[in-house]
């Protein structure tokens, strides 16, 4: 029983000792982690906090010696009963720490010190050594600087003491600094320095003297500077003769910082794998946490190398990025990158675009406070070369040649590739990376987006060519990881899709390797019932290519917005409409009457159904009924449509019996700063990047998120048309100079021309209605998108049809272009419709619009060609042949000997021209 009690007491004592030792170690750690603490303070604190950690604190004294400075406990006496540990920096002893007992304690263990105490002292010494390694030089310099401030002016050359200290602690660095000082003095034109250099480098004189042209082909002999203590002393003596103390101190400080950051040079080597880059950047990041850290000049080149390596090689991009980024930014970026061990890949166009845009917005927020709260969602990046590792890992190497196969074969094989990709497993390191990303995302829905390297090229937007997949990201980790790897495989497979390969072939990009980066982005939104969705999303364009009113200018920009996920605003759906807003002129809306506002508003919205873990399109009315108004910004996004009236939704909720929700964004535009934020962001991005951009955005109801940013790259039909310099007069059918938008409509085989005078002189309303019917017939008969409609005044006029041909969208939906002609009538110039009667239909179908004002003396209008060319109308619509004098259908090749009509519109020049020329294929 007694022995058991003793054992318990012994155990208790032992535990008490361990607790004391731990306390002591934590206290040391705490001291070393104190921000801005000086070495002097550290040493003073150490002698206080170490004794309590020992078995007999009352007998314990401490002595610390570092760099020649000695600190010891009050009443310190050296005795035989001591423990000591060396302090090492880079395996060099820079000091020691010793513990002494004043008398020999009557230890029950027979020895004055425990083994654990010995280990504790070694650990403390090692920790101090580490601390010195990370910050000794800068800390010393910092101390010197502060001490120097207190030293009287006549005594300020005390820096020599500091240099001596450096010579003791890090002689290699001392030598490097001495060399730099010597070079500096030479460059500064100090003659004695030049002599000193010659004496330290004996061959220099002969080399300099024999620096003749005939020696240019003879390799120089290798010489080094012989470093001696004498040389060091002479160099700094010279320095003190020619410079004042602060100047010398500043130079030394700078060179020490440069030396500390010299490891960054490895980053310039592009052969270093991403994993090594990550290690180097991590080390730099840790170093930069030190308050005395000063980034040196040399890191600029490294920053540019990093930008080119990971983000973009485009000069325009690099020029902006280097002003907006710091090396440390790569620490956070690399932290979110997924790569293989041997990866050398990069991020791809989409990721790079978003990353830079985010940097610009963050940086410019100080100048434009309205940008301060704009965020980007949490994003992880899979580097571009992982696609090749994946292909190789899965033994699909032959796919590299897939793009050179005939397109029909590519089309046939694509489903098999897609299936095969879905069935294989990913390399282990990629799975590990994806798993880490999933841990970061939690169970928030995510979207897996392609980020192709070729997207970098301006003019190749790859919109919709590669897949973007939404994942609900629900369920067990294993299940979520499977879904994520499947999605990545599917996006990879889309690289080999016929659409993508055709698109690349069309743009001459086939011979470039299509490395596909992947961006895994948190979906912005909130959970509403079983759904997950943002309050709204959309896309904004810096230039508006669809002007629906003469009061709207191109530079006013364009927003396409929808409630829910922005996918329905990005894509043109045909059966649904986003809300169009001109940020520069938000009052001028496309639709005016409440019924038009309702008809041309989004009917469906895209959401993520968390129950079924699927991406769904839901009917807005049903959705609003189902979630019962539990929608962030509900009243800002929607209005109520009731009795042909559109009104704000009551704060008490909707009357669902009588009211229908209609997405108008009215309150968002008029009551919040949303529009101002978007406009400011677009302007800042355009000003900084130097070109108009298109961005995707979303709001979770609280914050506005930037999801994508790229140069605005319009579809071909909306691209600025080239206005040919040299056209023969007989080639030109018409020109225009007012209200021009961009567009290029080539290879038109038929012109349908409704002659304004003949139309105006029709005898009855019935005859005018017949013209509309005839147009409808021609719309069905003529080759789709190969004809244009030219007519007087307002196409689709619903009131007085004398002012324009009365047609519905279905009567003109196959045309490639709608032209309205405004002839002066006395003093009156008719207002044109700008296609407003079916404007949104025209936009969604890419049908171009052009107004013509033939009375302007500076434009051409070839009325003779239009009226007198052979007219095929009666032949095509024999039932309405009596309208032949009103409607002219011109077969352009027949009338011009094989030429086709091209309409080229250039908004930048404010010019448009319709001219006949050879077909595009032949020109190629």
């Amino acid at each position, binding site marked *: 029983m007694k022995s058991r009690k003793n054992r318990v007491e012994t155990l208790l004592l032992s535990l008490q000792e361990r607790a004391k030792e731990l306390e002591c170690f934590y206290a040391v750690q705490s001291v070393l982690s104190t921000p801005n603490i000086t070495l002097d303070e550290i040493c003073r604190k150490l002698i206080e906090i170490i004794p309590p950690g020992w078995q007999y604190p009352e007998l314990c004294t401490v002595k610390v010696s570092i760099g020649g400075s000695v600190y010891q406990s009050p009443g310190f006496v050296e005795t035989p009963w001591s423990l000591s540990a060396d302090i090492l920096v880079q395996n060099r002893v820079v000091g020691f720490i010793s513990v002494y007992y004043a008398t020999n304690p009557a230890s029950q263990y027979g020895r004055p010190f425990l083994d654990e105490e010995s280990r504790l002292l070694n650990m403390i010494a090692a920790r101090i050594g580490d601390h010195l390694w990370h910050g000794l030089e800068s800390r010393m310099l910092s101390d010197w600087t502060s001490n120097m401030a207190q030293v009287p002016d006549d005594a300020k050359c005390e820096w020599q003491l500091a240099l001596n200290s450096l010579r003791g602690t890090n002689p290699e660095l001392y030598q490097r600094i001495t060399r730099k000082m010597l070079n500096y003095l030479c460059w500064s034109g100090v003659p004695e320095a030049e002599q000193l250099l010659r004496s330290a480098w004996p061959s220099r004189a002969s080399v300099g003297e024999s620096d003749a042209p005939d020696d240019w082909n003879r390799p120089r002999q290798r010489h080094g500077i012989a470093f001696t203590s004498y040389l060091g002393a002479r160099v700094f003596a010279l320095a003190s003769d020619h410079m004042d103390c602060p100047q010398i101190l500043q130079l030394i400080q700078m060179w020490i910082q440069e030396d500390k950051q010299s490891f960054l040079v490895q980053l310039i080597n592009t052969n270093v794998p991403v994993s090594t880059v990550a290690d180097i950047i991590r080390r730099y990041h840790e170093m930069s946490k030190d308050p005395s850290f000063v980034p040196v000049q040399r890191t600029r080149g490294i920053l540019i190398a990093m930008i080119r390596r990971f983000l973009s090689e485009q000069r325009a991009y690099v020029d902006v990025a280097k002003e907006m980024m710091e090396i440390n930014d790569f620490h956070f970026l690399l932290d979110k990158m997924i790569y293989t061990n041997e990866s050398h890949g990069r991020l791809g166009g989409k990721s790079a675009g978003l990353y830079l845009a985010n940097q610009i917005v963050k940086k410019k927020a100080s100048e434009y406070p309205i940008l301060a709260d704009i965020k980007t969602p949490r994003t992880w990046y899979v580097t571009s070369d992982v696609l090749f590792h994946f292909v190789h890992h899965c033994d699909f190497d032959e796919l590299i040649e897939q793009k050179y196969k005939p397109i029909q074969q590519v089309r046939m094989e694509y489903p098999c590739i897609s299936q095969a990709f879905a069935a294989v497993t990913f390399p282990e390191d990629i799975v590990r990376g994806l798993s880490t990303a999933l841990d970061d995302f939690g169970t928030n829905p995510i979207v897996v987006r392609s980020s192709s390297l070729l997207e970098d090229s301006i003019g190749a937007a790859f919109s919709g060519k590669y897949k973007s997949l939404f994942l609900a990201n629900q369920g067990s980790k294993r299940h979520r990881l499977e879904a994520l790897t499947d999605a990545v495989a599917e996006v990879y497979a889309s690289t080999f899709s016929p659409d993508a390969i055709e698109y690349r072939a069309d743009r001459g990009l086939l011979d470039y390797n299509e490395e596909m980066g992947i961006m895994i982005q948190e979906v912005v939104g909130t959970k509403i019932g079983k759904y997950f969705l943002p309050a709204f999303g959309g896309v904004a364009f810096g230039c508006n290519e669809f002007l*629906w*009113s*003469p*009061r709207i200018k191109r530079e006013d920009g364009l927003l396409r917005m929808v409630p829910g996920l922005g996918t329905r605003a990005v894509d043109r759906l*045909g*059966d649904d409409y986003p809300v169009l807003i001109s940020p520069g*002129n*938000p*009052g*001028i*809306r*496309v639709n*005016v*009457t*409440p*019924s038009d506002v*309702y*008809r041309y508003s989004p*009917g469906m919205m895209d959401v993520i159904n968390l129950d079924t873990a699927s991406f769904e399109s839901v009917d807005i009315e049903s959705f609003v009924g189902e979630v019962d108004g539990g929608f962030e910004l509900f009243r800002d996004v929607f209005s109520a*449509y*009731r*009795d*042909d*009236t*559109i*009104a704000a939704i009551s704060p008490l909720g909707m009357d669902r019996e009588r009211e*229908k929700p209609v997405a108008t964004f009215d309150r968002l535009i008029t009551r919040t700063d949303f529009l101002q934020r978007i406009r400011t962001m677009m302007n800042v991005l355009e000003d900084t990047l130097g070109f108009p951009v298109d961005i995707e955005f979303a709001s979770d109801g609280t914050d506005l998120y930037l999801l994508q940013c790229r140069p605005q790259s319009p579809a071909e039909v909306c691209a600025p048309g080239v206005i040919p310099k040299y056209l023969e007069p007989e080639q030109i059918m018409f020109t225009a100079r007012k209200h021009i938008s961009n567009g290029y409509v080539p290879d038109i085989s038929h012109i349908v021309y409704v002659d304004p005078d003949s139309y105006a002189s029709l005898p*009855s*309303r019935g005859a005018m*209605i017949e013209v509309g019917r005839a147009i409808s017939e021609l719309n069905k008969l003529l080759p789709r998108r190969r004809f244009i409609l030219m007519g007087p*005044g*307002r196409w689709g006029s*619903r*009131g*007085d049809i*004398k*002012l324009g041909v009365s047609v*519905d*969208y*279905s009567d003109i*939906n196959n045309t490639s272009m709608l032209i309205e002609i405004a002839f002066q*009538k006395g003093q*009156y110039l*008719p*207002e044109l*419709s*700008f296609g*407003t009667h079916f404007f949104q239909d025209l936009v969604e179908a890419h049908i171009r619009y052009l107004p013509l004002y033939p009375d302007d003396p500076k434009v051409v209008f070839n009325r003779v060609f239009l009226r007198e060319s052979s007219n095929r109308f009666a032949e095509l619509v024999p039932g309405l042949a009596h309208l032949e004098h009103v409607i002219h259908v011109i077969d352009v090749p027949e009338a011009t000997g094989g030429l086709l009509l091209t309409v080229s519109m250039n908004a930048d020049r404010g010019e448009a021209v319709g001219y006949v020329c050879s077909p595009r294929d032949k020109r190629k």
Partner: protein
Amino acid sequence: MIADAFEALASEREQLERACALLDVSPAVREFLSYAVREFKVTLPVRMDDDSIRLFHACRVHHNDARGPCAGGIRLHPQATNDRIRALAMRMTWQCATVDIPLGGAAGCVVCDPHDLSRREQERLCRGLVRRLGTNIGPRRDVPSPDIMTSSQHIMWMTDEYEAMRSEHANGVMSGKPVTLGGSASRREAPGFGLVFTLREALRLLDIKPTGTTASIQGFGAVGQNAAKMYQQIGGTVVCVACWNQFDQMAYSFYKKEGIDIDELASITNYFGEIDKDRAADLGCEVLADDAWLSQDVDILIPAAFETQIAEENVSGIRDSVKLVAEGATAAITPGAAETIGERGIFHIPDAIANAGGIVCSYFEQVQSDSNYYWSADEVLGKLDVKLTEAFHAVQHISERRKLSMREAAQVIAVDRVARACQERGWV
């Protein structure tokens, strides 16, 4: 504004001439009725959002107010013509008189394209118009209502400005206001229900019990849908409905031999009367061509979609089983086709009464607003029933007595009522 001798006015005057000839109206009355009693042309300076000032031109035409205050639409349109507005005002006079409501006819416009104006600019324009028209409008003088590109919001701004000018509540000055601010209950249902009230009377006249009759309807918007519901309520069976499909950019007819459940069909129809084609097929409807609605073996045809839907070229498609056509949309039947219909012995309820539910309800709104007492939906529909039933029988009576078509009779009765009012007042 363009001085344009457009045919609409000529056409109205021609119809007036014919009616006057039948009524043996004096030349003075005839000439008086062919002109408007008052016309206002106003110029509106409007401050734009960019602080510039832009001038707009507007007009308001009072064709005739012998029977009561004028009423009629006011449109915002960039190229409205004087004669067009005159013609519209004259048409309004006859429409009100046909259904015997104590209102005269008016019309007006502001020459502008609202697509080019911001909401604030539109508001300033509407308020400016009311200030310029001043006391020439008012609950007892002229009651404007919405027309092309004017909405209840525009009407509300105008009402508010008028009340501000008068420093009193006077929302009887406009009709077409939001229901929550003086609009009439049942405004959406009135045109469709009104159509069936006249249809019911026509069946009674023809001694056909509604139960057991079948109908085919073109259009499933507010008019078509409500007409179908009411027709079903009185015992009829709708076997075919045609409507537009925006996505396919064409119309379809939906046919179900045993009869379509209208509520069920309405549940798969959007606000614009477009029926979900696939879901209709799931409900057992045959999806037929756009014009198939016209050639069904039914008793009743109701064109309630657009103008000129039954014309000379397709009127022959009407089956012999058809006994009655109710013209639910304005000018849905061309004059030539109407003649053929009459010749085949098919009873034609012209748009002047079949489509008058909206006008009558607009009058009811003015009455309610002016008295600041609002009726329940049932009360509105009850009064509408009485008004249209009386109108139907009055027109039918003239038709029978003077051996005129129902369409001619409607025009004649209107001209007669207005002419007599003018004479009784001693104007002419």
